[in-house]
């Protein structure tokens, strides 16, 4: 493919989706050069806004005809560069496919288009007694299509599971531009569970155009508690003890002092700023069981030297607490111009050790690290603060981040619990998996996406193995 064919591709795309559905000048494309991960940038050649499955199929067929990469994008909130158009090509922005097509309460499912913002579905269900359980912290902006691509989690996935546990099936456009239905509103379709492997495939297998999701009953009641701790160690020990006691909280989140300061500035909740860590603990379910669970949790926290265990007094206070938690990442903007976050996971019994190591590693590299994370899942989000104008600092940030993830692997964990590999953590795939493991994954990708046209250079560290990755400009490490 040569640059001279670009105008012709753009013309064809305009014909396919309408001229108001194509961006092709440099100013308009710039914004699409990155997502929530800003360390690397790469501009697409063209952005298209399909409105229907047929539009998406037409776009993918044109990508084939012109032999260019093709990358779906939702709200662009990925923290791992999942929307980075490495090698340029076509970005398929699904933000105009945003209808909730069907809500069926009796059968507990909804059918949505990929551009539906996560929280819209729960808002649409308000008053029905149902909700959509996966609630990533970015749920006010991120799309369900993006959630599907990254198998998003969220605070309440400790009890309710992640996206894959709530996706029943999908309609998708395949790499050749054909349209296929996989799974559906009924369970147990005969044959392979392709839905299971498509969720979390980061756009490398197909582009979802409709998604059947499971709806969950609203719990009858909540108890939302705040445990205040004088030391991080006491807090992490409490987490491990709560899980070991056989309690399954709906959510169990930890925030350390660094993040509390930013949150307090943003929301004035009244967090005790001298505390070293707080736990946000929620149990939900039948009223008949809640007080007992609350008391057991409070008892465990106190045994682990909590200074105080408070309970949210009403729905408004609960909501505010969750708003604080969910907007924690953004509030980091108040602490430093840039940040990067890691998404490591360790077995929950390893949390005390891991937190100690994170602070040590930060000290060693001279970078500030604050923590807010899904403690109940063992899913860490150490946030490393930096100023992107300082190249030396960036180098130290990357070194510290790498060391933290290596430690997660050493603890028997993973380098990503919910953000995805994207481009950010490609190199860690070789540390987590053997060449044989990766070869099998590569072969699966080949079954769906034989030349690597869909989302090239994502998830698998095998750049150059597929045709399109060889031809399109390769990705280089940030520094």
């Amino acid at each position: 493919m040569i640059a001279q064919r670009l105008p012709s591709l753009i013309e064809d795309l305009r014909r396919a989706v309408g001229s108001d559905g194509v961006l092709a000048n440099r100013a308009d494309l710039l914004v699409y050069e990155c997502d929530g991960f800003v360390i690397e940038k790469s501009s697409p050649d063209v952005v298209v806004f399909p409105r229907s499955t047929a539009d998406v199929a037409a776009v993918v067929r044109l990508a084939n005809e012109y032999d260019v990469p093709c990358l779906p994008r939702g709200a662009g909130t990925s923290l791992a560069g999942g929307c980075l158009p490495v090698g340029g090509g076509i970005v398929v922005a699904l933000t105009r496919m945003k209808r909730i097509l069907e809500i069926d309460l009796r059968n507990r499912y909804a059918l949505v288009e990929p551009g539906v913002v996560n929280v819209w579905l729960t808002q649409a269900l308000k008053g029905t007694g149902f909700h959509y359980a996966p609630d990533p912290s970015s749920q006010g902006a991120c799309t369900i299509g993006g959630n599907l691509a990254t198998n998003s989690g969220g605070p309440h996935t400790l009890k309710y599971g992640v996206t894959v546990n709530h996706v029943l099936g999908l309609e998708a456009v395949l790499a050749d531009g054909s349209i296929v239905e996989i799974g559906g509103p009924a369970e147990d379709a005969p044959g392979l569970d392709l839905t299971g492997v498509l969720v979390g495939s980061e756009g490398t297998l197909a582009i979802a155009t409709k998604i059947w999701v499971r709806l969950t009953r609203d719990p009858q009641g909540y108890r939302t508690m705040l445990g205040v701790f004088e030391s991080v160690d006491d807090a992490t020990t409490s987490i491990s003890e709560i899980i070991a006691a056989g309690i399954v909280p709906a959510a169990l989140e930890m925030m350390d002092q660094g993040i509390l300061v930013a949150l307090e500035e943003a929301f004035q909740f009244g967090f005790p700023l001298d505390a070293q860590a707080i736990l946000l603990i929620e149990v939900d379910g039948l009223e008949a069981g809640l007080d007992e669970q609350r008391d057991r949790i409070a008892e465990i926290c106190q045994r682990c030297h909590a200074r105080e265990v408070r309970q949210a007094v009403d729905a408004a206070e609960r909501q505010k607490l969750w708003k604080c938690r969910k907007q924690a990442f953004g509030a980091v903007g108040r602490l430093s111009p840039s940040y990067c976050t890691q998404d490591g996971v360790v077995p929950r019994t390893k949390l005390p050790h891991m937190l100690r190591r994170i602070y040590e590693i930060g000290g060693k590299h001279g970078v500030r690290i604050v923590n807010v994370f899904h403690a109940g899942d063992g899913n860490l989000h150490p946030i490393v603060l930096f100023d992107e104008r300082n190249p030396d600092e960036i180098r130290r940030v990357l070194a510290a981040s790498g060391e933290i993830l290596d430690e997660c692997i050493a603890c028997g964990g993973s380098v990503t619990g919910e953000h995805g590999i994207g481009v950010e953590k490609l190199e860690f795939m070789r540390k987590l998996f053997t060449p044989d493991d990766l070869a099998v994954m590569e072969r699966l990708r080949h079954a769906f996406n034989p030349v690597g046209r869909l989302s090239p250079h994502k998830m698998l560290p095998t750049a150059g193995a597929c045709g399109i990755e060889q031809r399109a400009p390769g990705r280089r490490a940030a520094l």
Partner: protein
Amino acid sequence: MPTDVAHTLPLDDTLTPVAEDELARVVRECARDRRAVYPLGGQTSLDVGLPARRRGLGLSLAGMNNIVDYPARDMTITVEAGLRVADLADKLAAENQWLPIDIPEASQATIGGAIASNASGPRRYAHGTIRDYVIGIRAVDGRGTAFQAGGRVVKNVAGYDFCKLLCGSFGTLAVITQVTLKIKPRPPASAWAWCELPSLEAADKLLATLTTSATTPTAIELLTGPPPDEEGPLASVAPARLLIGYEGTAAEVAWQLEQIQMAGRAEGVNYQSTGETATVQRVWSRLTEFSVPDAEGVAQTSALAIIKASVLSSMITNLIRSIQELAPTAAILAHAGSGIVTVRLSETPLGGLAAAIVRHWQPAARAARGNLVLLAARDTGELTRQVVWGMPQDDARLQLAVKQQFDPHGILNPGRFVYGSA
């Protein structure tokens, strides 16, 4: 159904490796020789699928039944695939934990086999299916390559999720060798509420109200036809029987029983209930074993054929009616909240089994937005791909493409699964 393997599979030999590398070597050799490989777990699901035609090697996982790691406080366990389900359950019970998946014939079945066949039972309404519990997997593909996916932590999105892909793949993509499971604390109390209903219409009406019940049932079961027990809650012969299972703390269970009985009175439905341990456990067990062809109790006979339909839960009574039209004596159990209907046929349906399935019941399932498959049949002579697995799914071409990547020589459990001749 522990059958004599030789009757079900054309094996000329069976090997029992004790380690993954040994197993991988065997598969590599078979791949080289294009020799069929039939993975064997507890041999409880050998009836499922098309009859095997190619002679080949039985590959038993019986030698790989170790518990690799059980960090109970992390609520995960890593075991080899040949571990018996009952042994796993015992180990977990000692820590007051469990895997809340109902797996028939647990003393015989292996965890690898349960995953490969996607075994499930009444609790799937509240707890999901086994795919929701497999967080790490090791397996050997049809080239003899040992690989892993996932890991040992409960949340992990690194790499493709082969844990899900291999669930229900019936050993056709890879031989599962080891799995890491997410586990749950075992609820202290369990009880059943049940009622007898005059018709399927009445059942449908009641089921609709349960969608928004204040209670959170673990299982919602609908029974018609011959009862699966001689005594207790399952012994009724009423036209339709609804059973609702509750689990949780004693206080939660007691509140829910009270609540459902109150709701029942408002609708003119009389719920009985029991929390008596032996009775409660007997009900769970009979419902779980319902899909086993020679299961105890159901009409005091072993079944001629077992059929499983998966449809929208709002459509199950429609489907049951269309089954009853051709097979009035069928024993039917529906995991009603999940839309899963299991049918035990003890007589040949009107017009013959294959015709009833293909001409009537599969279209009825399709009209209910789902599918219908044949799990077991005593006479396997007339079975075709469509009789057993239904019309190919919309994604059949993709399924085949995936199969070919994992097993390019088509040696794993050949000819039995949805791919048709592959």
